[in-house]
Structures are given as structure tokens and as C-alpha cells.
């Protein structure tokens, strides 16, 4: 059976003008990501992974080449069109959660739907509650962001990424600010979403995470250096269970 292509990059290049010099952040990147894949994109700092993430997230457009998101060509789109595309097709998860301060979990999750006229207040709230249930925070709906732990905040952020039922979830160092145990908890959640058929792109510099994903793309100097499928996906849940029990004192 032919798998559906969610993301397709064709020789994407991105140049930046820094003073009189031109920096080639991406030097011809091509790949396809299919529906239901859990892809880690790895690379050291300066490898171009942030630039690639901005491309994938429609926050930026390529200097040349073509990027198709769910079959839609992004390069020639105007700013407002890309905003709409982000709203409908992409769910972002950031390293530092980026929740709105003094705002409840539900309201935070509702945020993307605020910019979607197809949802009224009730539909918005229902969808937000459903997303929070999916990340295991059904009992934290009305907690404000400053009343939650880092792991909980990141789960709210994941719920926010899920709420618009996106074509792809883009995670940027989503476990970077969390301790080992909480990182595994979040990874368990990503694996669960993967198992449910979601397409996930996880950008990280942590090689460990690649073991839990289905495919690993390594970037160096703006080019793809490695692109391998992982046939031996480790279970994050097992890794979590194997961790020493937390010391309660």
C-alpha cells in the first residue's frame, strides 16, 4: 500500500545574508516524511537543524527548492497564508513550553483554535479538554501554568499541539528542559501518539532519543549526512520502569 506523504522537501536551500557574507544554512536538503512516522532530526549546533525546523514549521521559506506540506507548496506563500497553514496543519512543542502566563491549562490548549473561525467557544473547549485527556491531564484542566510542574507544562504544550488535529507535530528539543524521569514520561507520551498514527518530527541534539523513534535524520553543515529507519524501536515505557524509583524524602 502506498503511504501518504506528509512532508516533502526538494533540494531546499536557505541562505542568510550576514553583513557582506552569505551563510548557507541549508545546502540542498531533500526528503519525504510519510504519515505515521516518528522522525528525529539530529545535528550539532550550526548543523542547520533550527533552520530546517523553521522551514518545516512554515515560519520561514526556502531561498530555493520546494517544500510541500500535506501537498501544499509553501515557498511562494504570503505571511498570512503561512499563518493559516501553521494553524491548521502544524502542532508546535517548544523546549521551554511557551505557555501563556496566568492562564489555565484549558485556555492554553484552546489558543490555536482561537485563530480558527470554524470553532466556536464550546467546540473549542471540548476539543481542548479532549486533548488534555489524551495527554493525561484531565484532572488539571483549570490549573494555571504557574501551578504546574515542568512535565505537566510540557504535556499541556503537547495537548496544545494536538488540539487542531495537525498533519504533523513539530517538537523542538521538547525534553531539553526536563529531568531524566520526566523526559521519559514525555517520550512515552510521544510514543503513544505515534502508536495512534500521528506524524511526529522531533528535533534534538540528544542521540538517545533516536532509539525511541522510527527514523533518524542526521544533519551536518546544512546537508543530510544520515537518514536511516530504526527497525528496533525501544520502548520508553520500559526505560521509564527501569529507572530507579524516585526518592521521596
Amino acid at each position: 500500500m502506498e503511504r501518504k506523504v506528509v512532508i516533502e522537501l526538494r533540494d531546499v536551500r536557505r541562505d542568510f545574508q550576514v553583513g557582506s557574507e552569505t551563510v548557507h544554512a541549508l545546502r540542498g536538503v531533500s526528503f519525504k516524511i510519510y504519515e505515521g512516522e516518528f522522525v528525529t532530526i539530529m545535528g550539532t549546533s550550526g548543523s542547520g537543524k533550527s533552520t530546517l525546523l523553521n522551514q518545516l514549521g512554515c515560519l520561514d521559506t526556502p531561498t530555493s527548492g520546494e517544500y510541500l506540506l500535506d501537498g501544499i507548496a509553501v515557498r511562494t506563500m504570503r505571511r498570512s497564508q503561512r499563518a493559516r497553514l501553521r494553524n491548521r496543519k502544524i502542532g508546535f512543542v517548544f523546549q521551554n513550553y511557551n505557555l501563556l502566563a496566568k492562564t489555565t491549562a484549558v485556555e492554553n490548549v484552546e489558543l490555536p483554535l482561537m485563530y480558527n473561525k470554524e470553532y466556536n467557544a464550546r467546540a473549542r473547549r471540548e476539543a481542548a479538554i479532549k486533548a488534555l485527556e489524551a495527554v493525561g491531564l484531565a484532572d488539571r484542566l483549570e490549573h494555571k501554568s504557574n501551578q504546574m510542574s515542568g512535565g505537566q507544562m510540557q504535556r499541556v504544550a503537547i495537548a496544545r499541539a494536538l488540539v487542531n488535529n495537525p498533519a504533523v507535530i513539530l517538537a523542538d528539543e521538547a525534553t531539553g528542559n526536563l529531568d531524566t524521569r520526566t523526559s521519559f514520561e514525555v517520550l512515552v507520551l510521544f510514543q503513544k501518539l505515534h502508536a495512534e498514527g500521528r506524524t511526529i518530527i522531533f528535533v534534538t541534539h540528544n542521540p538517545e532519543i533516536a532509539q525511541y523513534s522510527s527514523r533518524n535524520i542526521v544533519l551536518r553543515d546544512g546537508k543530510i549526512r544520515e537518514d536511516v529507519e530504526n527497525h528496533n524501536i525501544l520502548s520508553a515505557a520500559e526505560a521509564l520502569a527501569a529507572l530507579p524509583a524516585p526518592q521521596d524524602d
Partner: protein
Amino acid sequence: MSYINLFKIAIKAIMSNKARSFLSMLGIIIGVGAVIVMMAIGQGSKESIRKELSTMGTNLLTIRPGADMRGGVRLDPSAMQTLKQADYEAILSEAKFVKGVSPEVTTSGQAVFGSNNTTSTCYGESPDYLSIKLWNIEEGTGFTEEDVKKSAKVCIVGKTVVKELFPGGQDPVGKTIRFKSIPFRIIGVLKGKGYNNWGMDQDNVIIAPYTTVMKRLAAQTHYNSIVCSAVTEELSDAAIEDLTAILRRTHKLKESDVDNFTIRSQQEFMETMSSTMDTITIILVVAAAFSLLVAGIGIMNIMLVSVTERTKEIGLRMSVGARGLDISNQFLIESILISLTGGILGVLFGGLLTWGCNAIIGYPAVIPAWSVIVSFAVCVAIGVGFGYFPAQKAARLDPIEAIRYE
């Protein structure tokens, strides 16, 4: 994003920075309050002048010698003596829309009774004068045509003159006073009118037949002015036209000559007064409006701070799908809300000041309804005008940089 949600966000943003929001509103509050109270004072003054003038007879017409002086041109002195008996007689016999006519000759001087004296003005008038000026006699009688013919030395006096010359409370009627050493018998006392808006005591008058004043006091053959009253206020303009035709004929003016007299109606006078008050009001309001300008700059400043503070939030909103327009609307609504809330509080503040003006100082200030509406409109304009630049700044942020802003 829907406007309801934008409003909710704006209210939340304002409430989470209460002190700062209030301080940026304060400029608007003071500015709007000042504008409101200035307009109220202007309006109040206008109304009290109007009330005052209407007690003097709204259909009053005043004919003065010389061309219209409002241009400020110096007059040929001979032109000041152009109103004569022939004019008066012509008006009496021919004027169509006039129901009372009185030549007027005035002279100031000292009035003496016994050991008391006072400085007053003697008005030489015809018997019609009191009805033209809507003035009543409280005690005694007025003089008659007979007195005019005989240049009788009789007079009617105002309350102030009575108070000054008869401090003991004797009945003045029948007593003989001296004005500029000419004896006048008091035949009537006028009802009190009090001070007018310009601080002039309207009761410090002595009214005598014009013939008496002309011959015995002023020694002149011309009138200082002629006052008449139009049949109705609406006919004032027709009366002026008619009188102009009569006087041009009696003055033997050619087609090409300009009028050597001026006829002004009370309405015209009222309009002049109002327009003077309007000018003063405008100057005051403009001064107050400058404080609104400063307040607007204050709001712009605070909105710029707000945009910088919330760069990360803007980045997040953009990455989850907010367009530039959504972001700029969000900040515009916030600045409109700040200035409009300031406007509402400012109107209340202005109302309080106006009340203080009335109750404490006793100045008759009235808030015109339109000034409240204008204030709100101006506040919205300030919110949009001074919020636009910060809102645009927010909308133009690059989401990539904004979301990583620390």
C-alpha cells in the same frame, strides 16, 4: 480571532498591570476632564448671557450713528452726529415693523439730594423706552409725551440711585434731586434689574425725557442712538431693512454711499457675544486638548513597552496561527480600551469638576451632551492613533525571533 476574545485578552492584559494601566489612563482622565469642564464653563456662560439678554428684550433694535464699527476703523467725528430729530420723526411715522421708538441721549454726572450724592448716568428717552426695554415701574409713574414736549424736569430713577441718595429710606417719589446742578423731580422708581454679565449695575440710572437731557444737560441737537423694538423677534430683520431704507432717505445718501449709521438687533448682539464666548471656549478646549495629545503619547509609550514585554507571547501566537492582523488588532483593542476607559473616567471627573464649579464657586457651568460624545470619539481616535504604531510593530515581528526572545 473574534473581537470578543480580543477584548478578553485586552482586559486581562490591562488587569494584570493595574497600576501601569491606570497611570497611562491618568493622562486621558485629566485631559478629558479638563476638556469637559472647559466646554461646560463655555456653555454655561453662553446660556447665562442669553438669559440676560432676553430680559432686555429680544426684539430690541439699536440704531447708532456711524458706519459699522466692528472693523475697527476710526470714524469721522461728524459722522457721529447724524441721528437727528428728522430721523426719529420719520421712523415714528413710517416704520412698519416697529412698535416703540425712543431717541437716546446719555450723559454721566453727579446726582445730589441733600447731603448725599452719587455718580450716575442720565438717559434721555421717550416714554416708549420702558416698554422697549421690558422695564417696569415699581413706584410712581413714568413720564408722558407732554413731559417730552415741555422738556419737563422730571425723572425716573433706578434702585441704586434711590439707595445712594435716600439712605434713610424716605419715599423718593415727589422729591427733587439735582443732576449736574439741574433739579429733577422724581416721579417714579424702577424695578431692580441687578448687575449684568459685564458687571455693570443696571439700576444705577436716571431716566428723563430726551428733550430735557438734550437741552438742559447735554446741550446737543443730535441723538447718541435711537432704540426701537421690532413687532416680533422674527420681524427684526425686516424691521432693520425698513429702518435702513428710511434713514438712508432722511440722510440723503446716494446709491454709492455706505450707511452712516448702524442698526443692530439684540439677536445679532447675542450672536456676537456667543461667538466671543465660543472663541474663548475654543482656546481653552484647545489648551486642554494638548494634554490629551500628551496622554496619547503616554499610551503609545506604554503600548511599546507592552509589545516588547510580550514578544514571546506574540511569537507563540504567531506560531500557532495568528496572522499579523490578529496581533495588531489585539494591541489596538488594548490601547483603545485604555483610552476609552480613561475617557469614561475623565467624563466622570469632568462632571465632578463641573459640579464643583456650580456648587462651590457658583459659576453656572453646563455640560453639553455633545461634548461627552465628542470626548468618547476622541478617546477612540487616540487609542487607534497612538496604538497603531505599537500594534504594527507587534504585527511585524518575526515569529522565529519572537518565540526565542528572552
